[in-house]
């Protein structure tokens, strides 16, 4: 309708243009007001009388062809429109006025019109004035029944527009955009469609135009009602000229489902009735899938996030995630299984929509049972298996469980970790076919990656739980007591050993205040220790605990702060050892030690007393025993001198014997004193030239016994660190012995020397005297033992005992080697 309220008929040609990526870039539209033309046609047909009047008002040219096919008249508003002077055709026959083949065609049409009386429209082109012009002629029978009137219109502009349109259609044809011209009938039969319709719908343009296939029948039945309601909705609005459908699905000739977008222009006739719909239809399946994928992934991630946030339990989490996947994929059935390596089975962790008698069953990887599980098969072949329709895969019919669940389409993804080890399986499916598709491969890959991560974490968790269990077992069975106490001093954990110490069971202790079991005197200590623990300090302390029976147990506690995952101190872990017995034993030992010390003291005092007594004895020996001896000797001498005449030889001999006895006893006393003095004397170790000392000793012996000739060989400059006075006694005794026991040897030899071996220096005094029996070796060094009769060799038997004492006082050793008649060698060391 125009602004003035006039109704006009307009032809609209609209093309939606898209680029190579099928993106909408614009619309080509051409419109033409055909109102006038229509009216003229109508009127021309209606009444001949009004022709002339009418002719003047129309833009078209009118030619009259007489019964002999000659141009007899014409009408034109402007002569210029003819492009040629009227003389060129008036009065001339058609073949003369027009070029072939147009002339023949026209003659044929004119004769047809004359014979049938029906109007015929004929379009043709002519080369006029160097340019090609297009014309449309409507040929009708004149009222006289012989002449034919041709109303001719210059449609060059129109034709050009159409050519352009066709060009555009050509472009459309090579694009994925399909242009349709639908009739407004109930099945939307197609009047025109671009050739590329075949690519999208599988049906050729001919199939459409011929009416073999109608548009409504290819729309997905689920979407058709919506599409219809959209069309009728927009069509009701008389002012609506075009609209865009919500994407809908079409089913191709190959039964594929495609998503399309559809932009439609409504074509109405002069009376406003809708005659046609013209539109462009684009395949948006890929976009749609991409969108769906995104939505699905969103659903999956949402479910994972939800699972991660809300579930503490792994099974619950697996269930949530599985549910998310299944939902996002538009499936109904699914299981997530974890591979139990030890038992070689796939154990369900989560399942959706699986009947109860199958739900919890392990799928074995080995044995005859494995044959009925498709997941086991997939795990064994290590392949992702996608089955859009099981009916196309008879080889899978042997899997009983698939049939049991009536699965038509399904996917099984065996899950492998980075080391290519099986961790589990994911299986999902539907009782309807084509619910899974190879197109979703990427999505499945993403799922696989996610699930592997999830299951690996689950396996790690299980391993962690197992090690935790092992730790717990270890702690529980440890022979030392273990307690874990929280900051409120409540028992969180106690082990068997601790229960044994305290006499309460684990159930009685866990959750109760640990201070209840602490000796009242140690409560202060406990609160100090708790503070120390809060500062993060470990410590070891002694704690008295009260057992269930009321006994006091002394324990040694090694406590360290226990921290949570964030490093915050949450309590105390303590190692508790019952040291009651040990402490008591220690106390006993202490008491015993004190007693022992006292005893030792007593004994020492006794010993000291004994030593003092010995000293007193030694004094007595040296003083009191010598005095009587002196008297005996002095007076026997006096008798010998004063009463010699009154005594006979025997008497005098007796007196002499008395005096020898006195001498011997006197020497014995000296030796005993010397022996006891050696023990008491304090050592003063200095470097002593033993060789020189030996020389002095030998000189003394020579002086005392000048008649004897003894060959003495002394190794020069033997230096030793020792007490000079004591070592002199040693040398004196040993040289004296050697001197004495060589008295009956023909060529007496005495040698003093030193041998050094392995840093040990051994001194020796060797003689070639009478020697001794090997069996007597030990007796040699004991006091008062004499190997020889006193009339053979003088001696008290104290000398070597004294020597032994001195040597051992120096930390050395003494020993002797000898053979009867072959001399003796005395060895000694000084540390």
């Amino acid at each position: 309708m125009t602004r003035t309220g006039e109704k006009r008929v307009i032809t609209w040609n609209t093309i939606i243009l898209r680029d190579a990526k099928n993106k909408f870039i614009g619309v080509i539209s051409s419109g033409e007001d055909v109102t006038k033309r229509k009216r003229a046609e109508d009127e021309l047909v209606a009444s001949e009388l009004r022709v002339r009047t009418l002719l003047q008002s129309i833009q078209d040219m009118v030619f009259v062809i007489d019964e002999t096919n000659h141009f007899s008249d014409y009408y034109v508003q402007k002569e210029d429109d003819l492009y040629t002077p009227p003389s060129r055709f008036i009065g001339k026959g058609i073949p003369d006025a027009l070029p072939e083949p147009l002339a023949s065609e026209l003659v044929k049409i004119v004769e047809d019109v004359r014979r049938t009386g029906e109007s015929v429209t004929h379009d043709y082109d002519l080369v006029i004035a160097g340019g090609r012009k297009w014309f449309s002629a409507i040929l009708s029978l004149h009222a006289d029944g012989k002449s034919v009137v041709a109303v001719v219109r210059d449609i060059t502009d129109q034709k050009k527009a159409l050519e352009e349109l066709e060009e555009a259609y050509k472009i459309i044809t090579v694009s994925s955009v399909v242009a349709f011209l639908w009739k407004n009938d109930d099945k939307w039969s197609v009047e025109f469609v671009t050739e590329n319709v075949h690519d999208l719908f599988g049906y050729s343009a001919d199939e459409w135009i011929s009416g073999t296939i109608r548009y409504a029948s290819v729309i997905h039945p689920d979407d058709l009602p919506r599409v219809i309601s959209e069309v009728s909705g927009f069509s009701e609005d008389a002012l609506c000229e075009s609209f865009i459908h919500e994407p809908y699905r079409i089913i191709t000739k190959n039964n594929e489902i495609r998503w399309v977008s559809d932009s439609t222009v409504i074509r109405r006739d002069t009376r406003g009735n809708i005659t046609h719909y013209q539109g462009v239809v684009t395949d948006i399946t890929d976009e749609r899938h991409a969108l769906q994928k995104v939505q699905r992934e969103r659903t999956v991630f949402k479910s994972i996030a939800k699972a991660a946030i809300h579930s503490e339990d792994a099974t619950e989490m697996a269930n949530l995630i599985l549910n998310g996947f299944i939902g996002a994929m538009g499936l109904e059935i699914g299981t997530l299984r974890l591979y139990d390596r030890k038992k070689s089975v796939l154990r369900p962790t989560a399942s959706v929509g699986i009947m109860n008698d199958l739900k919890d069953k392990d799928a074995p990887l080995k044995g005859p049972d494995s044959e009925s599980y498709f997941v086991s098969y997939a795990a064994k072949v290590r392949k992702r298996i996608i089955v859009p329709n099981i009916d196309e895969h008879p080889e899978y019919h042997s899997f009983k469980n698939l049939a049991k669940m009536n699965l038509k389409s399904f996917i099984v993804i065996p899950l492998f970790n980075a080391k290519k080890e099986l961790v589990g399986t994911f299986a999902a499916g539907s009782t309807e076919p084509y619910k899974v598709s190879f197109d979703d491969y990427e999505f499945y890959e993403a799922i696989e990656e996610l699930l592997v991560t999830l299951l690996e974490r689950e396996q790690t968790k299980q391993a962690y739980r197992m090690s935790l269990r092992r730790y717990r077992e270890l702690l529980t069975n440890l022979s030392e007591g273990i307690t874990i106490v929280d900051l409120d001093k409540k028992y969180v954990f106690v082990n068997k050993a601790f229960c044994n110490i305290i006499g309460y069971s684990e159930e009685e202790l866990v959750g109760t205040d640990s201070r209840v079991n602490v000796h009242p005197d140690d409560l202060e200590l406990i609160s100090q220790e708790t503070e120390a623990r809060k500062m993060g300090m470990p410590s070891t302390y002694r704690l008295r605990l009260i057992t269930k029976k009321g006994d006091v147990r002394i324990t040694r506690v090694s406590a360290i702060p226990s921290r949570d995952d964030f490093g915050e101190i949450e309590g105390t872990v303590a190692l508790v050892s019952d040291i009651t017995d040990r402490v008591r034993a220690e106390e006993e030992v202490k008491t015993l030690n004190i007693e022992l010390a006292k005893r030792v003291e007593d004994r020492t005092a006794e010993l000291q007393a004994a030593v003092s007594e010995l000293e007193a004895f030694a004094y007595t020996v040296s003083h009191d025993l010598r005095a009587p001896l002196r008297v005996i000797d002095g007076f026997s001498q006096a008798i010998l001198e004063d009463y010699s005449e009154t005594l006979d030889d025997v008497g005098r001999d007796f007196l002499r014997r008395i005096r020898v006895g006195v001498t011997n006893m006197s020497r014995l006393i000296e030796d005993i004193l010397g022996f006891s003095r050696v023990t008491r004397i304090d050592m003063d170790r200095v470097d002593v030239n033993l060789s020189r000392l030996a020389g002095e000793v030998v000189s003394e012996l020579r002086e005392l016994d000048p008649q004897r000739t003894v060959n003495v060989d002394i190794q020069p400059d033997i230096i030793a660190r020792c007490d000079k006075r004591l070592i002199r006694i040693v040398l004196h005794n040993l040289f004296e012995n050697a001197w004495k026991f060589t008295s009956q040897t023909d060529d007496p030899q005495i040698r003093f020397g030193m041998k050094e071996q392995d840093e040990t220096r051994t001194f020796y005094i060797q003689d070639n005297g009478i020697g001794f029996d090997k069996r007597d070796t030990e007796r040699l060094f004991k006091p008062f033992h004499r190997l020889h009769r006193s009339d053979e060799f003088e001696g008290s038997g104290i000398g070597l005992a004294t020597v032994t004492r001195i040597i051992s006082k120096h930390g050395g050793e003494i020993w002797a080697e000898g053979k009867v008649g072959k001399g003796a060698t005395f060895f000694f060391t000084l540390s």
Partner: protein
Amino acid sequence: MSTGKILLVEDDQNDIMLMERALEKVDLPLELIIARDGKEALEYLRNESNDGQEKLPSIIILDLNMPRMSWLEFLKILNQDSKLRRIPIVILSSSIETRDICESYDLGANSYIQKPVEFEKFVDVLRMLGLYWITLNISTERGITCDRQS
């Protein structure tokens, strides 16, 4: 050669007799004065000192084992007496205990000799003592007057 005086402090009659007999054998101009214990010896010495320095003995021979007054006490008293402290003292004892020896010297003894058991050796000891202390040694009793010394 004037006669030397020897004060023997000895309680044992046997030893006194043996000493007298030994001195006879020594054959030196010696006068032997016997005191049976320390008190008696002090009494004698004090009496003698009253009569003049020259009356004091040239040497005191002291046995360590004495009744009534210990030899330690005797030596201390002697040491404190300005008139008697310069008389040479020879300890003649059967004991050769270190303690005895040291204490004797600490208390002013001039010599320490172990009494030999054999009579002949005893005679030798006395001879040497006489030779040294009476003949060689110059003591104060021969008219030498000393100033008081601490």
